């Protein structure tokens, strides 16, 4: 199956993953334990795009705001939409990675890399730094984001294809409607 067919027929998997991740971010303070990476924390920042349907029946809702609880986004969930795009913060070992993820196309946008890779923190005691080291650090940080996020996706796929999915789905629905009651 080629890429275009894949995202056409199975783009919903990415959207379900992102929606599930939002649900997870509001459980246990957003803490998730990954088999390989260990403990990470997930926070959804104040920008989301939700979608429903295809072609003439396609609906899209964009929600953003610094001091909102994303009530419109939660209402959209209750109306059957799923997360297509979201701004996410992953935290591990006091390092934060902030990025926007596009669920259907599996694209990473506007990644803000951790402070430890900013040029001023890479200067040695004599005030000099190395451009090559800075680049290596940025590459390592980007690959860490991908590794962590793909491991989260792997965790979701394992749950999605397990006998426990029905129970997980019921929990998500309770969260969706419980969130709607708070709106």
């Amino acid at each position: 199956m080629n890429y275009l067919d894949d995202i056409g027929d199975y783009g919903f998997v990415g959207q379900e993953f992102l929606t599930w991740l939002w649900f997870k971010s509001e459980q246990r303070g957003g803490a998730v334990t990954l088999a390989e990476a260990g403990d990470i924390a997930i926070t959804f920042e104040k920008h989301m795009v939700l979608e429903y349907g295809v072609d003439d029946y396609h609906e899209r809702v964009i929600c953003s705001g610094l001091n909102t609880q994303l009530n419109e986004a939660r209402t959209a969930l209750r109306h059957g939409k799923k997360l297509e795009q979201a701004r996410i913060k992953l935290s591990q070992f006091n390092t934060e990675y902030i990025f926007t993820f596009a669920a259907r196309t599996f694209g990473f946008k506007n990644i803000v890399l951790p402070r430890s890779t900013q040029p001023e923190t890479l200067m040695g005691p004599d005030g000099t730094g190395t451009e090559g080291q800075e680049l290596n650090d940025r590459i390592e940080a980007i690959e860490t984001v991908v590794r962590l996020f793909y491991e989260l996706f792997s965790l979701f796929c394992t749950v999605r294809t397990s006998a426990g999915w029905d129970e997980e789905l019921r929990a998500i629905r309770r969260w969706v409607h419980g969130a709607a009651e708070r709106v």
Partner: protein
Amino acid sequence: MGLARGSVSFVRFKVDGSLPADGEDFLEERLKLYTFRDIDNHTDELSVGWVSLGRLWGLDLNYPPALTGDHLVASLRIDQRKVAPALINKFVQKEEAVILKQKQIPSLTRVERRKLKNKVRAHLLAKAVPVAAMYDICWNLAESSLLLCGGNAIIEGILEDFFKQCFDLILIRDSPLEIAAIGLSEEQASSLRTASPAVFA
């Protein structure tokens, strides 16, 4: 905004295929062979080639080091001549009016009009200045994965074709099913392929 500084946006590919035994030499040779060639003083519509990371002109494999540890970093430069359709239409209509008057005919046939349009387009393209764009790439040689920074579906297609031409390797875009298949058993992967969208509401 790119691999070297600022915020970065990217898509990821799997690199399918193996490098020859003399991998590093092969990579350097191919990078040099497919270095970007300037078309400012030519009439070519498109030019695609490698340049050093973040540098518009030239490929210097040592600055910054193209091969660093397990990674190959460079920029894909794409220069393209374009002419706005409205401009083509304007000159087609202008030329058409002259021809109709000269030949004293009411209209051109569809074939004649298409030929005229191609001629006008070629003429305008030759006069257009190519616009340059650069897209950083980072190839993890150990994990056979590649990041393309910036770009869109068209640029991804250009990169896939060019990468195959340059290194004889195939790029496969990461997609939900491709990534899911890595960590799942065959049974689980099959279950996902046959899954229907869940209803969360």
